């Protein structure tokens, strides 16, 4: 029945080599973590997670600046995280001696939140800075960590009673 089967054996051999070569090439080309969690490279998750951090987080700030924490508790800015105004400072947190945060211009920083705008919530304190202060720095009158002026006076008055 199989008289002249040499050519078939040759063909089978070639195909077997091709299949083995395909398996080896596939294993060499596809990253090992591909398919670990799904149809993607599993190592990519760790690569994205490896990015350095720019914003330290207010818990880190509060570890050292306890006097500011106490001061903020007296005013409405208690809910405002440090880096909302002071900017990203993880490099300062890592090396407080050599990296010092830049001094803020309150005329610019305060206006970002408190400049009047009809789209802002009605209950949020807003001023037209040109009318309110004529553009002078807000910290001339307000203490940014404890911004209320009246409330502090009231407390002094209540203390006298």
């Amino acid at each position: 029945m199989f008289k002249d089967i040499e050519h078939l054996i040759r063909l089978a051999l070639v195909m077997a080599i091709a299949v083995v070569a395909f398996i080896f090439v596939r294993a060499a080309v596809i990253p090992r973590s591909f398919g670990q969690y799904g149809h993607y490279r599993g190592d990519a998750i760790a690569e994205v997670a490896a990015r350095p951090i720019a914003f330290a987080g207010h818990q880190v700030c509060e570890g050292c600046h306890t006097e500011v924490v106490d001061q903020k508790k007296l005013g409405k800015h208690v809910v405002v995280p440090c880096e909302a105004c002071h900017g990203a400072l993880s490099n300062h947190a890592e090396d407080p001696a050599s990296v010092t945060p830049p001094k803020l211009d309150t005329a610019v920083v305060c206006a970002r939140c408190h400049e009047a705008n009809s789209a802002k919530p009605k209950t949020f304190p807003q001023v037209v800075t040109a009318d309110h202060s004529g553009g002078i720095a807000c910290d001339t009158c307000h203490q940014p960590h404890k911004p209320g002026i009246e409330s502090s006076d009231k407390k002094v008055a209540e203390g006298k009673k």
Partner: protein
Amino acid sequence: MEITRRHLLLLLPSAAVAWKYVLAGTPESAPNYKLTEHWWGMLIDIPKCIGCGSCVRACAQENEVPDGYFRTWVERYHVADWKIEKPEVESPDGGKQGFPPNEESGGKNFFVPKLCNHCADSPCTQVCPVGATFVTPDGVVLVDKKYCLGCRYCVQACPYGCRFINPKTNTAEKCTLCYHRITKGLTTACCEVCPTGARQLADLKNPKDPIHEFLRTHTVQVLKPHMATGAKVFYNGMDGSVR
């Protein structure tokens, strides 16, 4: 060697520790973080947003987003009286420097911060031809920069317009939900700097997360629910005109 009861008692705890190590996946990359224990989302409280643009600036700084491109941005809506279907929306420079005073008087005005919705059934990951974008086991949609071809299918597929091609790398880029921060126990950069708490990171798998109580007791929506994307950015107090 004969295994006595003493041997077995010594063996069991060490085997348990070893098994836990195996289950944790790749422990060397994130020592105390387990992918399967989280399911991330975000809560956006529109009545609290003051449009200061802190989130947009923080995102750009934290993630080195190129100028003119945004992983998160803030829109200002103006709805004139009854014209709910035709709101006027503006977002100058993504709201990065805040918003100029409104010119239109009357009607309704409010801010809407936008970002990737980290959809559970995301259209963008389904169209990627090379497996370069995916939903992680903890529910964050990420891009594998090394695999991305820059073909822009995903940019077209996202119904929320949250993706762009980075002009430097020519690969797709998007909000990672600050994956490098949340895996280390921090909140995202945008949530960290939000002065009014309008943005809050939410872990939907953590039963102690206040998100569950909030979702139960408030009128919360997602964007484009009719597209069934499984969006996980929840908007509280959102007007019907928001697109």
